[in-house]
């Protein structure tokens, strides 16, 4: 069965979706990614969809669900690289992905994740005091 590879980049995980996903593949990714977050104790996940030419409500919901699941597992998700035509279509469809952090590309996504991590460790110090 085909799978979408999950790469480890330091304390983050990188998923690059390069194929037009059928529904089962999207659900498999959800499963694989939550397992990988747990196994690697990952603090952040970057999902690169720059190669995706279409995001419908099913894939959109999968992305929103992954973001929510990762948060519960103490990891932040940043969705990166959405094509403008995909963004326009998604919003018109009625899906604005609330609660999902986004960035224009992988580099900016990394910056966002690092910043989120620094802030959360500041919070930890605050709680200890």
């Amino acid at each position, binding site marked *: 069965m085909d799978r979408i590879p999950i790469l480890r980049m330091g304390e983050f995980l990188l998923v690059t979706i390069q194929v037009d996903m*059928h529904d089962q593949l999207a659900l498999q990714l959800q499963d694989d990614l939550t397992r990988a977050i747990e196994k690697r104790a990952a603090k952040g996940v970057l999902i690169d969809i720059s190669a995706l*030419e279409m995001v419908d409500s099913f894939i959109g919901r999968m992305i929103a669900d992954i973001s929510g699941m990762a948060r519960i597992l103490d990891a932040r998700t940043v969705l990166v690289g959405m094509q403008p035509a995909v963004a326009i279509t998604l919003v018109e469809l*009625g899906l604005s992905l609330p609660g999902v952090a986004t960035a224009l590309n992988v580099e900016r996504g990394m910056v966002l994740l690092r910043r989120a991590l620094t802030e959360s460790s500041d919070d930890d110090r605050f709680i200890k005091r």
Partner: protein
Amino acid sequence: MTVSSSGELPLTNEHDIVLGRQSVRRMTQQQGFSLVDQTKMVTAASELARNALIYGGGGTLKWALLTEGSRRGLRLTVEDHGPGIPNVDLALTDGWSSGTGLGLGLSGTRRLVNEFALESTVGVGTRVIITRWK
């Protein structure tokens, strides 16, 4: 309005949704749609194809390349022989869902196209016809 070419694709499993999307993409390109319009039509086709598969137990995706004067368009007809939709007006409301979806499928799809028609008969099936012009 003339139909310059038409055909039919089966919708019997998830892979057919992917194939349907790819076919619709090629047709929109052939009709000279902008990238945004291509994406809207492909997304609309994906929503309807999944509905036919999940709620209708499978169906067909019929396509027709249209010409009207100087403008070109694409019409898609997605049909299933499933249980039908008891309340069509409700099904076209944002946020309404019979269960597994987000409740955006039909109402969202309508916003992505220029023309939208839905016919459904309980116990017989559902047919959705969408058209987008260049």
